[in-house]
C-alpha cells in the first residue's frame, strides 16, 4: 500500500512543473494556478487507485485540471456577481523585440483570448493532447476544438505579429 502512495508522489513530483505551467497559461493567474494544481493533485490522490489504472493518466489529469479551473472560474464569477464588480487585471503587452519579450508576449497574447481558446491552445500545443483528448478534457465536440483552435491561432498570430511568425516559419 505504501507502493501506491510512493507511485503517486513520484508521478505528481515529476508532473508538477508541467501541470503548473499548464494551469498558469490557461488562467494567467499565479495564485489561481497554485490553487487549482493543489486541488487537482489532492483529488488525484483521492482517486489514485482508479486513475492509475486508466490508459492515459496524463490526459485524465489534464481533464481534472481543466474541470477544476472551470469550477474555480465559476466560483469567482459568482463572487463578482455577489460583490458588484471586480474587473480582471489586464497585462500590459510586452515589447516584441527579443526572444524573452516574445516568450512573455505569448503570455499576454493568451491573456487576450477567451477562456475556451486559451484552453485549447494550451492543451493541444503545450500538453500535446490529441483532438479527441482535448475535446474530452473540455467536455465539447472535436469540431468545437478545431474551430476554437483556428480562431485562437489567428488571434495569437495577430498579437505576436504575423510577419515575424511567418518569417520564422519559413527559415
Amino acid at each position: 500500500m505504501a507502493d501506491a502512495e510512493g507511485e503517486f508522489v513520484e508521478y505528481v513530483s515529476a508532473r508538477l512543473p508541467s501541470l503548473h505551467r499548464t494551469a498558469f497559461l490557461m488562467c494567467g493567474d499565479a495564485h489561481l494556478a497554485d490553487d487549482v494544481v493543489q486541488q487537482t493533485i489532492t483529488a488525484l490522490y483521492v482517486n489514485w487507485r482508479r486513475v492509475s489504472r486508466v490508459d492515459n493518466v496524463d490526459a485524465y489529469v489534464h481533464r481534472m485540471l481543466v474541470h477544476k479551473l472551470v469550477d474555480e472560474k465559476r466560483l469567482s464569477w459568482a463572487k463578482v456577481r455577489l460583490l458588484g464588480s471586480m474587473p480582471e487585471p489586464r497585462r500590459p503587452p510586452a515589447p516584441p523585440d527579443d526572444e524573452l519579450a516574445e516568450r512573455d508576449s505569448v503570455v499576454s497574447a493568451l491573456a487576450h483570448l477567451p477562456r475556451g481558446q486559451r484552453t485549447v491552445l494550451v492543451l493541444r500545443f503545450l500538453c500535446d493532447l490529441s483532438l479527441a483528448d482535448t475535446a474530452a478534457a473540455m467536455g465539447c465536440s472535436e469540431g468545437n476544438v478545431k474551430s476554437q483552435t483556428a480562431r485562437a491561432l489567428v488571434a495569437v498570430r495577430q498579437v505576436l505579429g504575423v510577419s515575424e511568425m511567418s518569417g520564422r516559419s519559413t527559415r
Partner: protein
Amino acid sequence: MTTLDEERIAALLRSAQVPEPRVDVGRAVRDGRRRRQRRRVGGATAVTVLVGLGVVSVVELGRPPTPPAAVTPILAASPTAAASTAAAPPVTCEASWLPQPIGGSVAVANRVDPTGRYIVGDIGTGNEDGRVVLWTDGRAGVLPASARHAAAVNARGVVVGTDGGGRGWVYRNGKLRFLATPPGYQAVLVHAVNSRGDIAGTASGAGESHQAVLWSAERPQEFRLIGRQGSGAIAISDDGTVVGSMDQLPYRWTPEGTGAALAVPDGYPRASVDSAYGEWAIGMVPGDRKGNAVQMLPVRWNLSTGAVTLLPFPSASGIAGTGDLLVDDGAPLVVAPDGTSRRLPGRPEVHSTDAGTYTANGISGDALTVVGAAYENEAYRPLVWRCRR
C-alpha cells in the same frame, strides 16, 4: 495556418516565463486522506483511512485489502458464489444492473434507504463531475446539477448530501434546497437523514473547529447545534438518537440532546463511528502500528447494551438493523450477527474475477438489499443485490 506555426506556438508555450509553483504534494496527500475518510464515511469508497491525533493511517491504495489470516475460513469462499456458509435461514441473492439515465464511466450506487426502495448513486467521469442519481423502485432520475455527493436517502426518498463547496443540501419531492450553515462555521458535512426527515451532520470552521448539527428536511434554513465544540454527528436513528463523536471519543446523544460516550474496546485509546442503523453502529479503532502508519480495525457497537466488539474483517462498509454487516474484502460479503456469512453473487456478463471487481457500499435496514458497482473495462456500472429469505 501551417504546422510550423503550431510548432512555434508550442515552443513559445513551453518556454514562456511562468511563476514558481507553490504547490505542496505532502499537503495533497494529507488533505486527500482526510477526504477519502469523509467519502468513506459517506459511503463512496471502502478504504481504511482515519487521520487521528498525531497518527498517520495506513492508506490502502492500488490493491485490494488483504484479509487477516484469522478469518480465512469465511473469506476463502468463492467471490461469486451465492451461498450461505452455515445452516442459518437460507438466503438467495441476485445481482441486477441499475439503469443509467446519463453517460459516464464511473456509475456507482452508494446508498440505499432502510426499505430497499430508494437507491442513490453517482454517475460521472470520476472527475468531480458526477451527477447524483436516485433510483426509485428501479427507475432512475437525475438530481439537479448543484446536488453533489449524496450521503444518504430515507424511506420516503428524501436525499441529503454535501456539495463540493461544503454546502449541505436536501432533495425532497423533486425540489433541491440548501441547508443553512451555522454562523461562525464555514462548511458543513451532511451524513444522514432518518425516516422523519431529521438530518444530521457536522459544521466545521477555522482551525479545525467543528460541531454536530441537526436540520429538518422541511425547514432546511433552521438548525440545532448538538453537544459543544468538538462534537460531530454521523448518524441519526428514527427516534432522533444521534451517534457521532466528541473530541476523540465515540458518542451518542439522546433525542433530548443529553450526550454520553460510547465504549472504546479495552486496550485502544479511542474509536470513531462510521455509520449506524437501529440499535447498531460500526466504526474503527487504531490497530497495529506499521512503521509510522496505523492499521485501522473495524468495530461494532450494540447501542442498546452499549457493548463494543472488534470485528475479524479488514473493514466494514455498512450495518443493517438486523445487525448484519456489509464487509468488502475484495468481494462483497454479508455477515449475520451469529457469524454466518453469505457472498453476494456476480453478474454472468462480467468476466473479471479480480479482487475489487465488485464493490458494495450500502445495505438496507433488513439486510436484504445491497448496492454497489462492478468494475470492468475501465468502467464502473451500478448494481443492486436483492435477497430473499
